[in-house]
Structure formats: structure tokens, C-alpha cells
């Protein structure tokens, strides 16, 4: 196709679209941060429920990120080294599945595994009387399911970036597989593992859909926001939302710093 559009018209159109998008994103967030007065914020934050919900979110999401680290880094390493052979593409697809699953769907799916009538949940309930739903374990399960892929993908990219000659050099100098993993791969992928950890943590804090189905209580911040909203208690909703937003933005900026940091320790 061939249009005779002047340079000015073309760029005016582009910048207009761009300005709309930037406004659309910034306006609500700025409004939310400036909305609650200090008095309102302090009052809401002196409420025990509010504090508990934010504390719950921070603690469970951090535990989730730690678990993801210990389970995800080995998996990422195996994927990066191509050790799944012809199953590689398949494993890759499976790992990324949670990114494609709507969170309420994930919640329902997990319910039928760890719920009282779920495959694993039923076993624990019938033999030990242990119920998962409505506990911190359920929250962590929900968070882990939706946030794990971020850590695996990031760590895998990091391991893949490590030149094969570093590994060979380590081997020929006498190091074992584990020594090479620990002394070469882990430090050289530090940046990727750290950003994967932060991404997973941020994703876990934010989770609502899966958590609300598996565990309305112990209440987490996103659930508290919704809970207060349904009870027309908008001032609590706003206050928790503003605090949660600031926490998430902090993690987000931390992540940017890690990514932009020089690779050398």
C-alpha cells in the first residue's frame, strides 16, 4: 500500500495514541495513591484485620518464592542443559501452562486436588483429619501454582546464557557436576535468578482469583480489598489497595535495578 501522509500527521497520530495509553495507565494509579488522606490511611492501618491481611500477603508470598527457588532452579538447570532430550518442548509447554490458565480456573482445579474431596486432600482429611483449604498451606499452593513459571523461565534463560566453555573449563580443571553447578552456573546466573525470585514474589503477592477460592481466610490483602469492597467499606479497600500498590511498586523498582545492574558481582 502507498499513502501520501505527511510526516507531521503521521507522528501526531502516533504520539496521540501513545499519550492516551500512558494516561490510561497513570491516571488510576496516581489517583489511588493520592486518594486516601493520611488520617484515613492511619485509621485503616490501625485496624487489626488490615494489618493481618498485609502481613499474611507478605509472609505467604515470600515463602512461596523461597519454595519456587528450591524447586524451580533445579528444573531450570535441567531445561537449560537440554537434559530432557526429546521431551524438552513438552516440559517447556507444561511449565508455562499456569500463565495461560485463568486464576479462578486454577483455583477450582487446585480445589479438586487439595480440597476435602480432592485426590490428595481427601487422603489427608480421611486419615489425619487435616484440611488444607482455608489454611496458609492452601494460600501458598495457589500462589506457587500461578507464580512458579516466572522463576523457572528466568533462571533457565540465565543458565542458557552461561557459555558452554565455562562448563568445560570447570570440568577439565577437575570440578564435579555439582561443584560446577554451584561455583560456575549459580553465580553466573545470579542476576536472572534474582529477577526470577522478585517476579515470582510480586506475582504471588498479587494473586487473588486462585487464593479466594482455596482460602478466603486467613485473609490476604487482595482478598481484604475485595471483602471490604463488597461490604461497601470503601475506605478500607482504598487504604489496603494503596499500601499494597506501594509494596508492589517497590518490588518492581527493585527488579528494574537488578535487571539494569552490571553483571559482575
Amino acid at each position, binding site marked *: 500500500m502507498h499513502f501520501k501522509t505527511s510526516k507531521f500527521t503521521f507522528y501526531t497520530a502516533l504520539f496521540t495514541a501513545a499519550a492516551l495509553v500512558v494516561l490510561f495507565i497513570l491516571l488510576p494509579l496516581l489517583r489511588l495513591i493520592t486518594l486516601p488522606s493520611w488520617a484515613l490511611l492511619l485509621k485503616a492501618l490501625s485496624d487489626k484485620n488490615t494489618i493481618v491481611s498485609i502481613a499474611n500477603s507478605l509472609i505467604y508470598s515470600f515463602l512461596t518464592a523461597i519454595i519456587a527457588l528450591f524447586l524451580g532452579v533445579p528444573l531450570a538447570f535441567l531445561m537449560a542443559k537440554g537434559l530432557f532430550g526429546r521431551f524438552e518442548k513438552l516440559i517447556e509447554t507444561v511449565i508455562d501452562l499456569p500463565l495461560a490458565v485463568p486464576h479462578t480456573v486454577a483455583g477450582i482445579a487446585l480445589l479438586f486436588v487439595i480440597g476435602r474431596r480432592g485426590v490428595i486432600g481427601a487422603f489427608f482429611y480421611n486419615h489425619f483429619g487435616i484440611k488444607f483449604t482455608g489454611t496458609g498451606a492452601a494460600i501458598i499452593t495457589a500462589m506457587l501454582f500461578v507464580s512458579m513459571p516466572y522463576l523457572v523461565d528466568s533462571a533457565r534463560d540465565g543458565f542458557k546464557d552461561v557459555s558452554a566453555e565455562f562448563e568445560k573449563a570447570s*570440568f577439565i*580443571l577437575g570440578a*564435579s557436576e555439582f561443584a560446577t553447578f554451584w561455583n*560456575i552456573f549459580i553465580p553466573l546466573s545470579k542476576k536472572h535468578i534474582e529477577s526470577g525470585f522478585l517476579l515470582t514474589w510480586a506475582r504471588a503477592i498479587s494473586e487473588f482469583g486462585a487464593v479466594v477460592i482455596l482460602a478466603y481466610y486467613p485473609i490476604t490483602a487482595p482478598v481484604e480489598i475485595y471483602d471490604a469492597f463488597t461490604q461497601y467499606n470503601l475506605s478500607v479497600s482504598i487504604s489496603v489497595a494503596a499500601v499494597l500498590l506501594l509494596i508492589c511498586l517497590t518490588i518492581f523498582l527493585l527488579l528494574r535495578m537488578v535487571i539494569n545492574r552490571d553483571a559482575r*558481582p
Partner: protein
Amino acid sequence: MRVLELQSVSVTRGSFSLKEINFFVNKGEILTVLGENGSGKTTLLNTIAGFIKPDSGSILINGRDIVHLPPSERGVGYVFQTLALFPHMNVAANILYGTRFHKISNVKDRLGKISSLLRISHIMDRYINTLSGGEKQKVALARTLILQPEVLLMDEPTAALSPREKSRIIDELKTVFKRLSQTVVFVTHNVSEAYRIGGRIGVMENGRILQIGNSDEIVYHPVSHSVASIFGEVNKFKVRVESCNSGMCSAELGNGMVFFLGDFKVCEKILLFIRPEDILLKTVSTKTSARNNFSGIVKDISFAGPLVRVVVESGQTFIVLISKQSFEELAIKKRKPVFLSFKLTAVHAVKLTE
């Protein structure tokens, strides 16, 4: 004493393969493997190091077959083309890395000795990305030599250096290896580098070692056209032996007879190689001591750096390289008649293997 010996080693890597590699390296000797990129040099080193398993054959170090040992237990050192220095460790940590995995009592002694030998004692605390190309080169060497490997493998280790550093480092390497009586297999695609290192040269092409010998043997007695052309463009003629008497042979070539040394049957088909720079070009037919004389017509002239490449048609097409000075003095022009002469020993005759 043979420190390293390969016996009929064959390797398959996808569509590429190493075919029946046989050679040995004596204690303290440097063997240079010379070949184009893709000829299999790095595959060869990786096989000796244990990163690639051969399909068949034996690799002996001090007489012991090490084919079934992992890389870490072969007693082999390896300086990679990229050097593969660990960027997250300083120089000392890089050099000491391997000592953690070996029982070495006098680590500090060794570190002091090797770093003073290589003159890098002053950079022990620096990180790799602050080093010059030459310094990196020495650190990579120190990291390997501190483990006192039986054989040191070097994969184009000067690839990343500037031309000036290159020749300096080569000389330093030679000195260090001599001092330590280090046995080395040195891989390069650079002919002048191979010359400069000295010692035996193994010419590699397409997964085979075509010839092993010192540089004179390879230049003046190439076993094939491939070996001959490693040192640049070469005249190649397929001829039928006319006569052979006590080592002096003759054959019909273009519009004349060519004389050469060898021991062939009459009527046998053979290949002759003549280096373009070994042919003398004149505009008048004066008598020379050279046994071979041809006359022809200049077909093409082109410039190749300080040399002029002249193509002469003489029943057969000869390529001749002459200096720009001669070119001017002789006032060579296209379509002018010229005379070629070359010595008996400038002709390298090889049996045709079909």
C-alpha cells in the same frame, strides 16, 4: 618418550567425522595442528580432553588408555579459544580454581612460581574484564599449568589478540613451554603462526590428518594438493610420466617437457605442484641454471598486496607471483610473450590416488 598418542581414533559428530587419527607427541614437544576452520581441529582437542567420546581407537597418555576417563581425570590441560576465564572471580581465584579439586600440598608455592614465570604476580586481585588480551592469555595458561598437566591443549589461543600481541605472545609461550618441558598440542589456522611456533606441524583437512612433519617437509614435500595449497595458491598439473631414470623424471606439460625428481613408473599418472612464487618470469629467453623452461603469453595481471599475480598461458595455464619491482622492470603487459623457468626441486610430484 611418547606422552600422548592417538591410535586410529574415529569420531562422528552429526554429518562431520574425524577419520582414523594417528599421531604422537613426545615429552616436551610442541605439535602444531594446522587446518582451516571446520577441518576438525577443535573436535580433535575435545576428543583428547574427553568432551567427545570417540567411536573407536585409543588415546594413550604415558602409555595408559584414557578413553574411558572423564575430562577431570585425564591429566590434560585445555586453553580454550575464548580462554573461558571465570568473570566472577579475580585472577588468583581463577588460577586456584582447579587446585580445589586436586590434592596439592604446596598450592601457594606453585601459584608463586607460575605467576612469576608468566610475570602476572602484580594482577592477582584484578577481575578478568579489566585485563588486556595478553594478560588474559597468561591467566588462562597459569590456571591450566598450575595443575601440571601431562599434555596441554591450546585451541587458537591467540585468536582474540591484536596482531602485535600475537607474535610477542607466541615467543613467550615457546619460552615458557621450554622451561617447563611442557608437552603441547597447539591448534591454529594461521600458517605463519604455525611456522613461528616451530616443531612438527600436522596438516588437518576434512577430519583427517593429511601429513605430519616439520615445516620444510610440508612445504617442499607435500603429500597432496590439499597440503600444498595450504600455503597459498599453487599450480597443479596432472601428467603422465614419460621417463624416470635414477630419480630424475620427465613428463609432457603444455607446450614443453617438465623435469622433476621422484621414483615413478613410466606412463603412471601423477600430480605435480609448483608454487607460483617459485617460478621465475623473464621477457627474454636467457640461459639459466633452472632445468625447466617454458614460453607463454600473459593472460591476466592482478595485484595482490606487494605482489603481482601473472597468469601465463603456455599450453597449460601457469600462475606466477612476482614482486612489484620485477613487474615494473620487466614492463609486463597482457598478451606479451614471456618465459618461465623453475628449478627441478620446485616441482613436487605426488602419486595420484583415485
